[in-house]
């Protein structure tokens, strides 16, 4: 008895520690959407290899993950649909037929999707289970990428042809502000603490850093030519920007807003995602048909993973248990 108790306690402590270590080690996958081949690739971030390929009918442009339902939603601009993917079973479910030309997409993690219609200049609020469009809102021209707060209450939209970012209150479905940024804003990222938004302006080659409380631009640092993707580390300290021309990722210090590293990747890089633990980032090289794996401690490219053709959007998401 005197011996058993500490052993049992020790064993359970070890078990808890092990489970914790395992969860930490395999907590996130990287998902890459390839438009030309119509495939969502699942990258195991331990091995940095493609663990699964999920086929989607059509040419999916962008996708979002609902962290609650653990589904991915990919826009199909050609057919006016949103493909639905069960990330645990790694299979597709019947797609949502919403019409128009869906492009950018964000999830509120509570059953609703926000979907931009590129040519109708609208945002639709879509029930992710039924596909019913529960509301529509007109924004600027050519809504590109979207970013929602975790609670889904606020939505940011990069209006590429209007050169502004629309800030939307999703409850009232009203535009709170339209903030003029640089020319051709395409990608945007909300910092994990949701205090600032980084917008990549393709044609002016700048970032617009927007304070999400004042809704004012606090800085517009210059990037390399044609910034097309942006991501922010989980500790809010670094901003990663992919630059199509030059084939690079620049890393900005989020406080000084100065670039402190530049990493050569593949050709025409687009989407970027950073692991929650901050160790690695993944970049979709659209022209090369590959994913660059970046080590964020050394700021070097440590691997290129060949992937299906036309990779554009990259997201990190919790791995299945």
């Amino acid at each position: 008895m005197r011996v058993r108790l500490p052993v049992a306690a020790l064993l359970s402590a070890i078990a808890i520690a092990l489970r914790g270590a395992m969860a930490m080690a395999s907590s996130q996958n990287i998902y890459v959407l390839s438009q030309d081949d119509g495939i969502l690739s699942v990258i195991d971030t331990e091995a940095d290899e493609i663990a699964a390929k999920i086929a989607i009918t059509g040419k999916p442009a962008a996708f979002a993950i609902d962290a609650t339902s653990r589904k991915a939603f990919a826009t199909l601009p050609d057919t006016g649909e949103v493909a639905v993917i069960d990330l645990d079973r790694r299979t597709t479910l019947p797609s949502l037929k919403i019409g128009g030309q869906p492009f950018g997409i964000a999830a509120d993690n509570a059953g609703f999707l926000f979907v931009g219609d590129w040519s109708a200049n609208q945002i639709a609020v879509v029930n992710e289970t039924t596909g019913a469009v529960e509301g529509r809102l007109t924004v600027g021209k050519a809504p590109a990428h979207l970013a929602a707060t975790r609670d889904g209450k606020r939505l940011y939209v990069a209006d590429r042809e209007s050169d502004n970012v629309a800030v939307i209150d999703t409850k009232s479905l009203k535009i709170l502000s339209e903030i003029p940024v640089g020319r051709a804003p395409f990608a945007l990222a909300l910092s994990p603490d949701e205090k600032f938004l980084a917008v990549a302006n393709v044609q002016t080659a700048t970032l617009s850093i927007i304070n999400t409380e004042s809704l004012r631009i606090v800085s517009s640092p210059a990037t390399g030519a044609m910034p097309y993707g942006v991501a922010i580390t989980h500790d809010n300290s670094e901003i990663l920007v992919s630059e199509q021309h030059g084939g690079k990722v620049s890393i900005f210090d989020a406080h000084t807003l100065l670039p402190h590293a530049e990493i050569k990747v593949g050709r025409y890089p687009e989407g970027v995602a950073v692991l929650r633990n901050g160790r690695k980032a993944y970049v979709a090289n659209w022209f090369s048909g590959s994913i660059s794996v970046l080590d964020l401690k050394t700021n070097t490219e440590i691997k290129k993973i060949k992937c299906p053709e036309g990779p554009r959007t990259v997201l990190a998401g919790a791995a299945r248990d």
Partner: protein
Amino acid sequence: MALRLRSLLLFAAVLSCSNAAWAHGPTPQKVDEKITIAAPPADVWKVVKDFGSIGSWHPWVTKIKVEGSGNETTRTLTLKSGGTLIDSLDAIDDKAMEIDYRLQNEDFNALPVSSYSSAITVQPAAGGSEVEWIARLYRFDTGNEPPDDKNDAAAVKASTAYIKAGLEGLKAKIEGK
């Protein structure tokens, strides 16, 4: 025989359906062309990096106007077809021997494309240099029902022809033929 014909027809019908599906959707398109030039890379790069030199080697270009300097440089090309291309310089990387630029305007008479950008690189190769000219582009009509002359296939075909003619012109100029 009749059965075989019918299955052939069915196959053709399936093919044409999938072609129609391919023509849809604002999916960026790729063009990737290469040529070998019998000259040292440094000599080829000297011509390629001169953003205004295209008027002296691209056979389609009849007139060129260069404005601005550095990364603010633009060139206005008048083509044989009468169309106009306004290109703006994005980056010149001497180490990688790569020049990047993008199209500022959309002129159907010049090229049936939109959101077009391009990169030309020079690399050492057996026999001299290899020049690679790539482009990322969208079709002219990015709506969901583009006419045949404004779809993905038309955009890629015209851009490929433009780039091929340019590479051949560059080779002819540098090799002195």
